[in-house]
């Protein structure tokens, strides 16, 4: 078991309220587990708790010994005037420098010259191929058009085996990709 959450109650970083949870879920090697729930349910906060950036107020969060985590956060626009190409980005992430087409065609461009969808797909590729056994993907299909969503689905279907994926999404297309389990966030916060 790569990740084992039992009745975890957490809260946004730096705050003790509102409380989110309790949530129980597990992710094993090779599994893709979806975490669903409406906007504001605390899905991203739960990922922050797993990565140690938000407090765990009660319950237990266990990562198997030696498990390395990759986190792909929700898309954000990089600053202008940042001389970082796609090659630079993958090298910094320690990711496979040879992504499939059409991602490999974008690598010579600066990140701030790519579209939001191109950057997002590169970030997903980096998360899936950088050293790590557990990959946390936070709303990877947000702001992607139909063609980019299809490429995202392809990346996830052809992901490296033996990695565990925890996928935060409320995109039905993405959830239909063949998740091993779906876990719904509890309604409301306290």
């Amino acid at each position, binding site marked *: 078991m790569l990740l084992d959450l039992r009745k975890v109650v957490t809260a946004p970083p730096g705050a003790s309220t509102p409380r989110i949870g309790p949530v129980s879920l597990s992710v094993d090697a090779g599994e893709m587990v979806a975490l669903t729930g409406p906007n504001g349910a605390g899905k991203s906060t739960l990922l922050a708790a797993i990565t140690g950036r938000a407090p765990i107020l009660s319950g237990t969060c266990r990562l198997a010994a030696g498990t390395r985590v990759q986190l792909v956060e929700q898309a954000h626009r990089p600053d202008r005037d940042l001389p970082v190409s796609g090659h630079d980005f993958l090298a910094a992430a320690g990711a496979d420098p040879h992504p499939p087409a059409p991602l490999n065609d974008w690598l010579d461009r600066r990140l701030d010259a790519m579209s939001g969808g191109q950057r997002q797909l590169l970030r997903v590729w*980096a998360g899936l191929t950088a050293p790590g056994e557990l990959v946390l993907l936070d709303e990877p299909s947000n702001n992607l058009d139909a063609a980019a969503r299809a490429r995202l689905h392809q990346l996830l279907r052809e992901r490296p085996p033996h990695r565990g994926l925890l996928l935060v999404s409320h995109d039905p297309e993405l959830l239909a990709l063949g998740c091993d389990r779906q876990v719904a966030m509890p309604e409301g916060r306290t």
Partner: protein
Amino acid sequence: MTELFGLPFLTGLAMAGLLPIAGVWLRLRGEWLAALAVAHIAGAGGVVALALALPALPGALFAAVLGMLGRHLPGAGNSAYGWLILAGWAATLLIAANSPLGETLARQVIEGQLYFTGALELGAAAALVALTLALRRRIDRNELATRLLPAPDPGERFRRRRIALASDVLLAAVLAAGTLSIGLMATFALVFLPAWTAFRQAGDWRRAGRQAVGIGVVGYLAAFALALALDQPFAPVLVATLLVLASGIRLIAPRRA
């Protein structure tokens, strides 16, 4: 002529190559103002050391390291750098005004003393060049990862912080050596202007570093020749030359993004 200016020329050339590299790291962090702050604090440390009849370089280095590591304190940021600039400026001038060497000390630190640098300064600059070349790839990768990718677990955060601390000490040493050799504002200009232009024009990270170093070195060579030919003080000539060079490239060359 060569004997008189050989060591200062080489010392300045080393700093003209090193400070733009510090500039690209600080600009990537969004902390280029740190260069001015740490240079001021280094200047104050150098003046304190001279006032105590100690060598200026260790004093400047100690103060610069303290100033640079201050970025890790809670709430640190541009406000803290603004505070350091004012504190360094006030301390430098007040200590200088109340020490036997008075104005000379402050002028050496604020305006630089490139023509009076010797083997010690050149040795320090050469050591910093060697250290920067040895660590550059690791620091580049760490700074890029810190800026672009979330640290996904405590182990990775610890690893990044450890490399960032080593980078801070190296940056502090480069800024202190620059302040004491070519002067406070010339140091800031070599940190700020080449990276400012390279970040806009370069196609990738490696080219940005090369372009920044190129602007720094070309600006330095032109300024050194101009200052001697026109019998002008070196530091303001260097700042003016870099302003013209960096701004000209920004105006002429197209933006890459």
